């Protein structure tokens, strides 16, 4: 039976999983089976996202709402984290640079570290913790209380309404938050530099602009789109296909953070390799 009112790819996977339980598989086979089922499931989920994102009608209102919830409401946390990272990085780096008589390089070094790597990655990890777990828990809770089913029967495409909007919002909001985190981090660095001496804002900013160029800014900015996409997608996937029951909500939130954080590091590693490849 192919043409039915609603399609739920996970149903097929669950059914296959149930079938596999009845056959005599070794534990290693079972682990591989589950791994490949999970990989195929998340691949299908990603492909479905790209299919649904292009297909009208578009959920602009919900996209704006999610961007507000995901982006604007994350600003205070990102600001505090960014400021502390900038401040601490400056204070910790000063003694090492002082040994070589290179304290004047401090603003430039901190700026390059922050903008290239630390700002985007720390911001993405904070984002995974706050937004990834939030999306996972929210969708899992909606799944448990049959709210997703209720949307389906009322003629709404829940994937488009819930998943596409959240993934798009996190993809678009994380780059903005990362730029904001970089800016606040540099402010923290300015405060850190001035804790042990006096450097004017003009001198500080001119040293930063001298040390940064397009090759520092562009790859760092681009990779945050991928971070945001991965966090939104993982959170949505874990929540949308969570197990029924309250335990499923906790598991979805937890695994969303763990898996999304792991994805951030993997994407970062790939991005750094690709950047090095193009720059050499």
């Amino acid at each position: 039976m192919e043409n039915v009112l609603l399609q739920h790819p996970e149903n097929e996977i669950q059914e296959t999983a149930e079938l596999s339980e009845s056959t005599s598989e070794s534990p290693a086979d079972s682990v591989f089976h589950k791994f490949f089922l999970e990989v195929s499931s998340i691949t299908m989920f990603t492909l479905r996202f790209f299919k649904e994102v292009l297909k009208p009608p578009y959920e602009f209102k919900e996209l704006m709402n999610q961007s507000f919830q995901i982006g604007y409401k994350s600003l205070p946390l990102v600001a505090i984290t960014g400021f502390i990272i900038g401040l601490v990085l400056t204070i910790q780096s000063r003694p090492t640079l002082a040994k070589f008589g290179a304290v004047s390089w401090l603003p430039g070094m901190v700026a390059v570290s922050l903008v290239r790597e630390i700002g985007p990655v720390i911001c993405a990890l904070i984002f995974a913790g706050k937004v990834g777990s939030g999306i996972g828990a929210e969708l899992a809770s909606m799944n448990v209380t049959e709210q997703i089913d209720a949307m389906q029967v009322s003629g709404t495409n829940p994937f488009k309404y819930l998943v596409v909007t959240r993934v798009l919002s996190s993809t678009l909001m994380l780059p903005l938050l990362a730029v904001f985190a970089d800016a606040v981090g540099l402010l923290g660095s300015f405060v850190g530099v001035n804790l042990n001496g006096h450097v004017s804002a003009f001198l500080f900013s001119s040293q930063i602009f001298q040390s940064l160029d397009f090759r520092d800014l562009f790859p760092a900015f681009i990779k945050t789109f991928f971070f945001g996409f991965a966090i939104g997608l993982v959170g949505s996937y874990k929540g949308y296909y969570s197990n029924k029951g309250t335990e499923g909500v906790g598991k979805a939130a937890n695994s969303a953070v763990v898996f999304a954080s792991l994805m951030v590091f993997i994407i970062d590693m790939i991005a750094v390799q690709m950047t090095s490849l193009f720059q050499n």
Partner: protein
Amino acid sequence: MTAAATHRKAEDENKKNGSVVVKMEHLKKSFGNNRVLRNIDLAIHKGENLVILGKSGTGKSVLIKCIVGLVDYDEGKLEILGEDVAELKEKALGELRKKIGFLFQSGALYDSMSVRENLEFPLRRQSHSISKEQMDSLVKEALQNVGLSDAIDRAPSALSGGMRKRLGLARTLILKPEIMLYDEPTTGLDPITSKEISGLILEIQNKYDTSSVIITHDIECAKLTANRIIVLKDGTFAAEGTYSELEKSADAWVRSFFE
């Protein structure tokens, strides 16, 4: 036989003779090795209230979820309002789904929205051209129908179990469905509220001439609402008839539901 019972019997006969809105032929559904529905043949008539009884895990919810499309059936034929579901394209299926209402066991209210927004949501989704005034009027009418006019600006979390069920019902009815599916509408409610919900189901049937399938364990609810009862056992129909017929069934297992 009392006058009311005679009237009910006559009404039941009318329902039986009415047009078929849902027709299942040899419907089958399995989850892995677990055969949940085995060769189900069923016809639900226009304006009829069909109650499905059965022990937990016998496939009652799966049956109505097949009708609304939340669960895919494996084999057989399903016709809804004269259309073969298997032959419909996605858009046509979406249109068909608009004619089916589903009351979930938990109410399935959207927690992040107020009572008003819960009711506005399906309206906004299905009719983009609806004005604010029309929407307000429909929301107020739906809440009035279920006796929840005072709760319009409250959050679902602030409502009692019975109120949540009634709100779920209002949200479903606001789209004026032709077929209503109730998944254990009185589970977890006290006897008085259960009776109120059963009364609402009857009221809806009379007011909107809807055809309903009611999954329940509540025998009082079945007694109040059913034109016809089907008892499901191991994925097949074990018995079918009116309440009074099944109450006196020769099968002790069937009779045990009514004791």
